[in-house]
Structure formats: structure tokens, C-alpha cells
């Protein structure tokens, strides 16, 4: 399934770019992320607990950041598998300065398989978009709360 959208991050572009690649930030903002461990260059192992209505499932997966062109764009891959199914989202995030911070546009594919996909068709589009939205909301909140500043070193000379 194709997925695309845009959200605004209340931070300047360079900072937003740094935050979006920061494992600590990612771990905090990815919905349900319980642990994120670096396994290689731009690669992380992730444990996630997805809770949605009465559904819940543990996912074990991988986050990968690639094709990094600071501060403009990078490719993000998030994949996970658990008993209730598996999912993979891959897309390119493009950052542009806008009023109030940085506009982050994304375009990519979400692929869901297993029980989730076989029985949850009418929900996949809605919920994928919701999870992405939650991620950006959380990121915004973290930035506002100054949490993010502590997580990521202030990229002084870039800013």
C-alpha cells in the first residue's frame, strides 16, 4: 500500500534532521517502541508493542536509516514481525523549511502480512496513517518539552 503525507516538526531543518535520525528520539517517539538497540551503521534492532483498541502484539524488528542527505532527505525502513503478523514500512522523508519549523514529507510503501493483513484490511490504511501521525505528534511534544534537546546534542555550528 502506498502511503504519503506531511507533518510539521517545530524545529529548524538541520535540527529536525538530526532528531529524526537520533535513536533515542526514535525510540521515544515511535508508537509502542520498547527498546531500540544499535546494531550497525544506521541500523537498529527494535522491540515494539502495538496496542490498538483491544488488539495488541509484540513485534521484533529493525529500523534502518539510509541514503542520508543532510539536511534534506533520508530513507527510513521500519520492519517488524510478531505472532499476529508482520509489517514493513519504507519511505523517503524529505525536509523543507516552513513557517513554524520544518515540513517533513514522506512517501513510501507500507506492507502488512499475516493475520493482521488477512483480517484487518479495512483498518490498515487508517491505522498506518495514525501511527505516523502519533510519531510526529510525539516528536513535536518532545521538542516542545525540551526533552529532545537533551537527547540529541545541540548541533551548534549547523544551527
Amino acid at each position: 500500500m502506498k502511503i504519503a503525507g506531511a507533518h510539521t516538526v517545530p524545529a529548524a531543518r538541520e535540527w529536525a534532521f538530526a532528531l529524526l535520525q537520533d535513536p533515542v528520539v526514535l525510540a521515544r517517539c515511535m508508537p509502542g517502541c520498547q527498546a531500540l538497540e544499535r546494531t550497525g551503521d544506521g541500523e537498529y534492532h527494535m522491540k515494539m508493542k502495538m496496542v490498538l483498541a483491544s488488539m495488541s502484539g509484540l513485534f521484533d524488528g529493525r529500523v534502518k536509516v539510509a541514503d542520508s542527505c543532510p539536511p534534506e532527505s533520508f530513507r527510513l525502513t521500519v520492519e517488524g514481525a510478531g505472532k499476529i503478523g508482520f509489517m514493513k514500512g519504507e519511505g523517503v522523508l524529505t525536509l523543507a523549511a516552513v513557517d513554524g519549523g520544518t515540513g517533513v514529507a514522506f512517501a513510501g510503501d507500507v506492507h502488512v502480512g499475516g493475520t493482521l493483513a488477512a483480517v484487518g484490511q479495512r483498518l490498515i490504511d487508517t491505522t498506518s496513517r495514525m501511527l505516523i501521525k502519533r510519531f510526529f505528534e510525539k516528536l513535536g511534544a518532545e521538542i516542545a518539552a525540551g526533552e529532545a534537546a537533551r537527547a540529541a546534542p545541540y548541533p551548534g555550528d549547523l544551527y
Partner: protein
Amino acid sequence: MIPQAFDYSSPRSLHEALVLLENGEHKVLAGGMSLVPMMKLRLATPGRVVDLSRVPDLNRIAESGGVVRIGAMATHHEIETSPVVRGQCPLLSEAASHIGDVQVRNMGTIGGSIAHADPAADYPAALVALEARVRLVSAHSDRTLDAADFFLDAFTTALAPGEIVLELEIPAEDSSEGYRYEKVAHPASGFAVVGVAVRIKKNGAAISMARIGVTGMGPRAFRDRAAEKLLEEGADIARATAAVGAGQEANADLYASADYRRHLAAVHAARALTVALSRAS
């Protein structure tokens, strides 16, 4: 198709239930029409299920002072057929009559439906159009929210861990009002591809009040205040509904694209308004 083993509690009082639910991992069981299928597919694997069916009076439906109170455990069938609901907020009865099939209406409850917050559920359209309020209680809290603030997103509500929906408070509809719930049902699931609930008050030929609630189209039910305003300012139905759903996110699935859902919302808003107008006096 077989759930995992789970513990089961069947509290006899609200207090007992709320204390049990202080453990945020426990799941409330109401009609089981949404929870049990998930458990059977093992998409939901609660360790303990707290069944509210034996808590007294949770399905009470009563009116006082122009407010209809509907207990969370009132079934869709009770709401569909209750003389109080039919008389005081018939829009909700009409919405209830469109839910699923007879079996589902006999088991499913309004509390379960709104707590589940399926984006394609029928009630939410009516509840936002009725400006209903939702009363939430936990072992140590009791608060009441506007329905519009209760539904946050797809399957996401303002319910905090340990909280349950206790009842709904619905301002009685004026007997001169016209109302209508129009639904496009998914041919497989029966859920609303789009559902539109409207209320209309007339002042002579003019519309003095309009409420439009839309479900199914987006991740949560919403009121289309722009269209309501246009109607109240004298626009005709076609013009007022042309842009219903504008600015709202729209869902897409195998059955209906986002654009088509938007279109359906506009068409059915117009149809619902036409019927509502004919019912208003």
C-alpha cells in the same frame, strides 16, 4: 479461532469492577462483539477479562430534566427499541437499528461500541450530532466529556487506563426536530463505509439549527460545522453539503477509496437532510 487462556471475573458491583480494573492490563468485556472475535484470532490476548454484565443497572435508560441517560451496558437492541430513546433522541435509535445484524444488536452495547471506537461504527455519527456527553469513571475519578472530545482517533479514545464508560448523557431532541441516519453498509462486514447522522430545526421555511455527524469516512466521527453553518445561514442542501468532509482525513480500503468515501459523505448528507427536513415540523 481459539483464544488464549484467560482469567475471568464477573463483579457484582461497580466498585468491585473498578477496583479490578485498576490493573490497566485487564480488559472490560461488555457484549463481546468486538473483543471476542479479536481474542479468537489472538489479536487480543488479555490476561483477565472483567465482565460487566452482572453489574447492576449499567444498562439503565432514563430521562430527567431534558437529558437522556443511557447506561454503558444498554444493548443496541435496547436502544433501538427503548420508548425513552425513541421518544427523546430518535436519531440514536435509528442509528442503533443499522448496526450489524439482530444477533449483534442483541449482544453489543453502546459503551463497548464507543470504547472500541471503530472508525466505521454507527453510533459516533449520531452522538456527535446529538452533542452527547460521555461519563467516564475509575476507582478514583469521575469525569464527563463531550463526545467530540472523547473520540480521538481510529480506535483511540480519551479513556485512561482503569477508566470505563459509565453512561452517556444526551440532551433530548426537540420534538419539532427532523432527524435521519443514512448509512452505506459494507457488503461483507456490515460496518459503515460512510454513515451520516443529521438533525434539523425549522423556523418557517428556514433552517434554524443543523447538526451533521459523519462516521466511516475518516479515522473518527466528526461534525461538519462548516456545512451546518451554511445551512443555518440559508444555503440550500445541495450547496451546503457539496463540501461535506472537506479538510478531514479520509480512510481508504479495498472497498472504497478516500475520494469515493468523501463523495458518499456529501451525497448521503444531502439525502439525510432531505429526509430530516421532511420530518421536521
